[in-house]
């Protein structure tokens, strides 16, 4: 298995805090697309494959995916101080903005233009999520599942979640377990 190495690393928990604060503040409508862009492409702290691995783990664990990703990555860099720095960086400033917006919404009620703007941002947020998927997809080429099986699992996931609307725990059971078993079998065949 090609073991790629990241081209850079954070110098301190403070650097982690700043990086995660920056990517959170750019993440309107979802932080994941920006996190991929910042951590993989701009900072080079993770390779695309490493990011995909971290994200896979973060997604099957309960809790917000991008927070889990920051916690695990921060912990790997600097232990609990790193986890705290990444998490606090992502949450502190955005939290203040959310509280201000909530107070304003409670006070001023709904203005049509504001509702429309929220809808428009929601559309772009969906586009950003799709772009993240397309960027990460080449990481599957090196997957021990093989390209055909990996593509099949992607399609089945979309079908079950978006079309059939199965609850996520069920999808993880129905596709995750066979996926892991197949990967384990393939890894055992070609050590």
């Amino acid at each position: 298995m090609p073991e790629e190495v990241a081209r850079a690393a954070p110098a301190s928990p403070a650097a982690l805090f700043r990086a995660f604060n920056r990517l959170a503040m750019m993440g309107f409508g979802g932080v994941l697309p920006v996190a991929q862009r910042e951590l993989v492409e701009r900072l080079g702290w993770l390779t695309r494959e490493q990011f995909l691995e971290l994200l896979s783990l973060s997604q099957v664990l309960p809790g917000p995916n991008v927070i889990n990703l920051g916690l695990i990555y921060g912990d790997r860099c600097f232990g609990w101080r790193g986890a705290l720095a990444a998490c606090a960086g992502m949450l502190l400033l955005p939290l203040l903005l959310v509280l201000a917006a909530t107070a304003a919404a409670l006070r001023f009620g709904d203005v049509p233009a504001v509702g429309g703007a929220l809808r428009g941002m929601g559309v772009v947020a969906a586009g950003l999520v799709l772009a993240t998927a397309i960027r990460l997809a080449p990481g599957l080429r090196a997957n021990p599942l093989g390209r055909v099986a990996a593509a099949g699992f992607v399609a089945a996931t979309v079908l079950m979640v978006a079309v059939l609307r199965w609850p996520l725990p069920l999808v993880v059971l129905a596709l995750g377990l066979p996926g892991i078993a197949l990967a384990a079998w393939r890894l055992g065949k070609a050590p």
Partner: protein
Amino acid sequence: MSHPDLWQSLLWGPVGIGAAEWWRLFLHFTALSLVAIGGAITTVSEMQRLVVAQEGWLTPVQFNDCIAIGQAMPGPNVLFVAAIGYSVGGLAGVAATMAGSLLPSAVLAVGAGRVGERYAQSRGVRAFTAGLAPLTIGLLLATGAVLLRPLAAEPVAWLLVAGTLWLMLRTKRNPMWAIAAGALAGALGWV
């Protein structure tokens, strides 16, 4: 509004929740934290059941506004629970919903991250991450599809998505430009 009232409202919410209600809010969000596979957004229906249907702390419209604020503001989408907490019980409510949503899953994520790292070269962990990687990509595609479904009949929405994909995949520009375009199109009533 006199100053003592303003502080009271900031700390405990416009209506003012008592210790018993605070505890119920905290416990409910704590319990949901550990079943929120795929993020806190997957447990929204359960949160709505407590906050709107069971306790009547918020109206359905106020509850939906909280979700929209979490999506639209920069930062992780999980911050919609802060908007709910603030609307229900001021800053005390924020502490209840944020700590409840984040602490249990954060401890689990750091623990799982450490186990994954220690046995990173083992066949089990490699099979685990490889087997789940296609699900990760499929989930991102499905999330985009689910978010776009209500807007499938709107040509401007498709234009916005196409423009977002182009910006993310073909340029190095900041995704904030796409968000701003979406907000503008929405505010003008095009989507």
